[in-house]
């Protein structure tokens, strides 16, 4: 058996689906139904599914999930200095929260609003894009997300427009004692030459919940999206995120993902470099402790000639935590003059920590320069001794070295203010404060 139970994730589906926003509209019903049908067939993946070989979802599947409700207690968004004042959209337990959001001052001509609203106001836009990038395939969680497609953020940036200030999307989980699941869907479409910066923050306060996010991103010719993500969910939460990108000629996609939260997290990114000159930088850091499982799975598909990709990921794993890195680079037959490089480095900080890495090259064109490197090890003893010999106590010395290690990835963030914000979050992790 390659599928576990579905953990009640489709319970009373028909009844609930009828109450979802936009229900009754043919294409949306069809899209959702397709997702539900597919998930029914797939169920939750077990470790016998090759792509899920290293991440164990048994704790997720153990008990059924209910539907998310508005939290009883007050929720707030902790400050994070992103340099410029961001446009902010906040989602609590999967639903847009107008009170905490501030989208005023956005330039004219673009679409930037919660998905549930877009289902009323921007139907044609959604119909042209939704479900076209995040196709179902054998993607268990995309299917599930599609079945429940309800809220999230829709962004369309017209030709040549640059949105100067970052767009901050905050997803807050606060379920108290209920075991609940939600499935945010984001859609970002940048037309030729458009540019935007998006900061996603997934923060949790309490509860055992599943946040199953899907982002569909379309970058037209020469567009650029800087996409930064902080995953700091509640300690018992499950965070599964799928980001799929189509990049046209000369488009640039930058992603940085910092993962510190949740009990089981999987951050999967799949980008198709569809036309000559497109490029991507996928970078990130995963910092684990306790019994956390932090999984980074990337797929870079070089489908056209003259594209470039680079990846730098770093992981630090303490206590009984487990890190997973699966990075696949595919170079298709006619994708000549491809340049693809990937590096994954992991530090094991405790005797019980664990890392599994599977970097993969799959190459069908000959004029390529591709490489990957992976290292696993502990802190450099010589460096540690050197610092201690200069009077720095052991714990501080370790801290310095871990910071320096993680910095190697964080330095890749192109936006200076966001870089520093992420850096201080990573530093706080060390103090056990994140």
């Amino acid at each position, binding site marked *: 058996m390659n599928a576990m139970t579905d953990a009640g994730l489709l319970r009373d589906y028909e009844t609930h689906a009828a109450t979802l926003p936009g229900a009754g509209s043919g294409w949306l019903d069809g899209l959702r139904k397709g997702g539900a049908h597919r998930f029914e067939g797939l169920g939750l993946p077990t470790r016998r599914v*090759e792509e899920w070989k290293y991440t164990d979802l048994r704790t997720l599947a153990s008990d059924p999930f209910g539907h998310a409700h508005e939290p009883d207690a007050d929720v707030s968004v902790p400050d994070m200095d992103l340099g410029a004042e961001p446009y902010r959209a906040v989602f609590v337990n999967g639903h847009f929260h107008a009170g905490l959001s501030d989208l005023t001052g956005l330039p004219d001509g673009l679409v930037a609003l919660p998905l549930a609203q877009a289902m009323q106001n921007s139907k044609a836009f959604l119909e042209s894009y939704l479900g076209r990038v995040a196709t179902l395939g054998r993607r268990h969680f995309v299917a599930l997300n599609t079945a429940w497609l309800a809220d999230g953020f829709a962004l369309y940036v017209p030709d040549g427009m640059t949105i100067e200030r970052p767009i901050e999307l905050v997803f807050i989980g606060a379920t108290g004692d209920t075991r609940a699941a939600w499935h945010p869907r984001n859609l970002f479409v940048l037309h030729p030459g458009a540019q935007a910066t998006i900061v996603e923050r997934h923060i949790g306060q309490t509860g055992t919940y599943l946040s199953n996010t899907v982002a569909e991103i379309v970058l037209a010719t020469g567009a650029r999206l800087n996409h930064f993500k902080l995953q700091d969910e509640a300690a018992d939460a499950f965070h599964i995120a799928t980001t799929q990108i189509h990049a046209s000629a000369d488009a640039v996609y930058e992603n940085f993902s910092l993962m510190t939260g949740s009990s089981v997290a999987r951050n999967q990114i799949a980008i198709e470099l569809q036309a000559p000159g497109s490029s991507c930088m996928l970078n990130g850091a995963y910092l684990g402790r306790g019994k956390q499982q932090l999984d980074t799975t990337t797929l870079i598909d070089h489908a056209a000639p003259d594209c470039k990709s680079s990846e730098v990921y770093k992981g630090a794993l303490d206590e009984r935590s487990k890190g997973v890195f699966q990075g696949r680079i595919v170079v298709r*037959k*006619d994708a*000549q003059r491809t340049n693809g490089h990937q590096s994954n480095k*992991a530090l*094991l*900080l*405790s*005797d019980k*920590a*664990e*890392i*599994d*890495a*599977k*970097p*993969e*090259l*799959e*190459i*069908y*064109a*000959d*004029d*390529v*320069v*591709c*490489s*990957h*490197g*992976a*290292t*696993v*090890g*502990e802190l450099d003893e010589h460096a540690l001794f050197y610092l201690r010999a200069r009077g720095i106590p052991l714990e501080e010395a370790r801290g310095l070295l871990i910071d320096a290690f993680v910095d190697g990835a964080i330095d890749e963030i192109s936006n200076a203010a966001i870089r520093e914000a992420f850096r201080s979050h990573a530093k706080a992790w060390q103090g056990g404060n994140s």
Partner: protein
Amino acid sequence: MAAVLETIETVGEATDKYKHGFVTEIEMDRAPKGLSEDTVRFISAKKNEPEWLLEWRLEAYRHWLTMTEPMWARVGYPPIDYQDSYYYAAPKSDADRPKSLDEVDPALLDTYAKLGIPLKEQEVLAGVRNVAIDAVFDSVSVATTFKDRLEKDGIIFCAISEAIQDHPELVRKYMGSVVPTSDNFYAALNSAVFTDGSFCYIPKGVRCPMELSTYFRINAAETGQFERTLIVADEGSYVSYLEGCTAPQRDENQLHAAVVELIAMDDAEIKYSTVQNWYPGDEDGKGGIYNFVTKRGLCEKRAKISWTQVETGSAITWKYPSCILKGDDSVGEFYSVAITNNRQQADTGTKMLHIGKNTRSRIIAKGISAGKSQSTYRGQVRMNAMAHGAKNYTQCDSLLIGDECGAHTVPYIESKNRSARVEHEATTSKVSDDQLFYCRQRGIPEEEALTLIVNGFCREVLQELPMEFAVEAQKLVGISLEGSVG
């Protein structure tokens, strides 16, 4: 220096097509087609085997029936009908097995001469280096040379069927101890129907004075070859073992599913080298050997196992020579060159399982894909929780020749020990135009220039081979790449 120069000369001669593609006309003694308990019993009876071995085979067969073919490798082929093959084919003369080379069927000796195996050239060889040879022809061992010389040191080197008769205690103790009968689909199949192979035992503290060598050849049509090799190196001993493989050109695909088990006890060292040149099929992918091989070695304390392979043949290669580094301070090495051309598919690599403290492993894999072939490196490095201070270094480089082939790298890196260190690097690129032009500007024709550059690319691996094999391997590089430029 002189040796290096010799090598150059032989590389220069590398121009002929698959030169081992001839069929030897010899009377065959066959089991009926197909696979059943009766086939297993037939083979066991034919070999006059003890009861325990028959039971062992039957258990493997019954287990095999419950298994399915592994599908995870990046190779594609039509379903294999396991009932449509002969599982036993011996030259008729097996009944009165030759006592010395002089008694060997001259047609067979001829075959080996064509293969370039210097069975009759012992004197010549002795001048350079002694090589003891066991030749396996369609799964039956036909001749073992230098037996007397080896016996002086207490070394046993013979056909495994002979070892079963003469040294049953050793065979019973070790066979299946590293690759259990239930290990995988092909290993189970092999355990049920293996007909022969080589056995080697090196006593405590003995350094085997010569290379031991086995040549395998599939000759009969519609025959599967299932040989089984078992090498036991007792404490503090050393042996270098060579394995060569060829098969005639045939239109249909032939199955080869071998099992090799190595046991290196405390402080022992086994060096196992393979030059695999089974028939790869023709330009359009017709014919060729399906090569599904399980090779694994067990290292006790401070022991070392080094696998070196040059894989140029077979239509399909599925092969992962592995090391279980059980003893503290033990060492595993894997050096590999895999060349695919035309429609060949290879999925090969290694597993290094670090169990003991301070165990070390090193993986150097060079893959070359040309024509319409697909080549995959698949390797696993696992650091278990108790593998304190263990280290691995892996370097995988792939070279692509032409835009219709593929090169893939699939490493699995798993560590549960903080003090263990794993370093993995992989690159993929094409042969540099600059390098090709430079060679041609010095007067070297394009195809030769390519061979030269590819041999350079593989050098780190080729230099691990014993000299005689290194020369043959360099030639093979040239032959395998024929027609891939221009």
